[in-house]
């Protein structure tokens, strides 16, 4: 598995997409910090970018790359290597490459311009999102033979999680506003990895507002150690379940 990991990672370092991703994030983050006089405001804008862009890029990149290395995978599969090791090595390499790119593109500017707790939480949640969407991307690519269709599905998944989920949740809130739904809104929102990551960052950034009446509800939920554990567990579920499902698909797959 380590060998597969090593060679895939070496291939990825020459991948223009990964370099482009690092550069894009770097330009956005650096640009925001330079445009805004107030670094904290740049952070606010950066949150929105990260919450929308990071999932999209992680998802599309993994899907496309999985199709691109299909021939290499076939080559590996005829060698005496366990399929588990092949996929494991590849997934780890992709995750590592994306995380590295993000550390350079997002982590570095944050560290230079605004070394704070909020920046740290943004980096960590961003990394969580990378892992979640890389896992989802791999699953899509393994389950879908056609590349175009795979990318299409990836886009639909991204759209569902980034906008449609919130829209449906809000519609539900309006529809059931006569009922005591307050305790359910936050946990249900937290089931979506993007919303979860955003809430964790908001708890730090919009802290003043969070201390208000309504905020206290989910500050109590996520602000406590118990809540942190729950949030991490949900994130982990989003990584583990697609990965596990991907391994299953790959084991039975007719390459």
């Amino acid at each position: 598995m380590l060998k597969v990991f090593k060679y895939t990672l070496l291939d990825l370092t020459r991948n223009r997409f990964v370099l482009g991703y690092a550069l894009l994030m770097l330009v956005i983050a650096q640009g925001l910090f330079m445009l805004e006089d107030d670094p904290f405001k740049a952070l606010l804008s950066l949150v929105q970018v990260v919450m929308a862009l990071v999932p999209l890029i992680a998802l599309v990149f993994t899907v496309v790359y999985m199709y691109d290395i299909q021939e290499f995978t076939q080559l590996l599969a005829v060698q005496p290597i366990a399929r588990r090791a092949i996929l494991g090595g590849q997934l780890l390499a992709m995750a590592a490459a994306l995380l590295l790119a993000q550390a350079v593109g997002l982590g570095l500017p944050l560290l230079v311009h605004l070394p704070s707790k909020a920046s740290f939480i943004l980096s960590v949640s961003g990394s969580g999102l990378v892992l979640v969407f890389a896992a989802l991307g791999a699953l899509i690519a393994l389950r879908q033979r056609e590349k175009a269709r795979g990318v299409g599905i990836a886009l639909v998944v991204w759209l569902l999680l980034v906008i449609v989920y919130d829209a449906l949740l809000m519609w539900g809130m309006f529809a059931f506003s006569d009922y005591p739904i307050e305790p359910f809104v936050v946990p249900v929102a937290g089931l979506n990895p993007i919303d979860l990551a955003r809430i964790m960052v908001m708890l730090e950034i919009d802290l003043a507002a969070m201390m208000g009446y309504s905020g206290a509800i989910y500050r109590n939920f996520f602000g406590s150690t118990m809540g942190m554990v729950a949030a991490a567990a949900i994130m982990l579920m989003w990584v583990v379940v697609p990965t596990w499902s991907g391994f299953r698909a790959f084991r039975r797959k007719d390459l």
Partner: protein
Amino acid sequence: MGKVLAILLSWLLLPTMAWAGHHTFHSGQGRTLKDLLETIAPGDTVLVHGEVREGTITIRKPVTLIAADGAMIDGEGEGDVLVVRADDVTIRGFRIRGTRISHMDDLAAISVQECRRITIADNHIEESFFAIHLNGAHDAVIEGNRVAGRPGSEESMANGIHLWKSSRATIRNNHVMHHRDGIYLEFVSDARITDNTVLHCERYGLHFMFSHGNLYAHNHFEDNGAGVAVMYSRDIHMRQNRFLANRGASAYGLLLKDINDGTIENNTFMDNTTGILVDGCNRLRFEDNLFRLNGWALRMYASSMHCDLEGNVFSGNTFDVSTNGSLAYNRMEGNYWDRYTGYDLDRDGHGDVPHRPLGFFTLLVERMPYALVFSRSLFVSLLDRAERLVPSLTPEDLKDDRPLMRPNPTAGHGGAGEHAGDPPENEDNKGPNAVAALFSPFRETSLAHG
């Protein structure tokens, strides 16, 4: 004007009168301070050495009490510590402690009853019930005192500096911590409250009730239960104060309730759950204030009318303006909004399209507070943007027609970011010009009412 001159003259003459007779008191040498106060003549000065433990001491003559190094007066829990019942008394430089806690009487470390021209300066008042309590005192000066209460529950606490039915008081350079209200004024007029620091008070840092024509400026309020409350008063002028870190469900930087004709200028509001709550106020001017990183920068209830907002800077707040109605009778013009996305083709510094500070999301949270969970999500920002372009839910008239393109550099205290968290040095903004500029409009109003 004649009255002002008379007061000034009396101040100039006071020291010469006070040195008429000079006594030195050493505690523990037979005589008590009470005895000495009985025998000395009006206008005398007493220099006090050592620790005085004589229960409640009442001053019935115009005298000056000055503490030698480390002098302390301990009331030993009898009741009040010092009670002043004469005009022209000065109490300077003491450490004072040992009031009793009472739910029937207003017991204080220094209790001033019905007199004029009292000076209470540079004292260190520790763990008292009320620290300084003025009842019917006029022309009092309270300056440079450090007042620290006992942290605890609100029932066993009282106010730090408490004024009741008093006029023309000067309260400056005091430092108040851990009381119920830091500074409390009821039926007080023409007071000047400047350069004070109030921290960690259970209720309000500064609290006005039925008090008209007062000024407070250059004060620092931080981490109090609910910031500053101004209630049922008119002609209050609030300038260059800092309101920081008042957080909680009913915590405000500044709470304005039924206030008429006040001005709120060059203040800094940072990191509060609600920067300012305006409830039932008329004809207020909000000018050049800085609202930064608050939950709600400004909540203005629809019961407020004819308020003017100009030159304020809104930056990094979760919500800039919120209301529970249409807010159509108030004017907003020439403020800086960091959410403004318009353009300035004629380059006059003002945006060419109006800004609508009340977003869709603000209204949503007003209706369903738990919708706060969607804060800064992509879906909500799309809806917000759409609503700003084509207002359908938000009030049509609620807009700033000439939003500033760049933040107004004079807004706020200046450099609030760097100072966040630490109390201000009282030395800043104390140039002669600054002080003159500070008080000149106040003179006009007080003369207008006198």
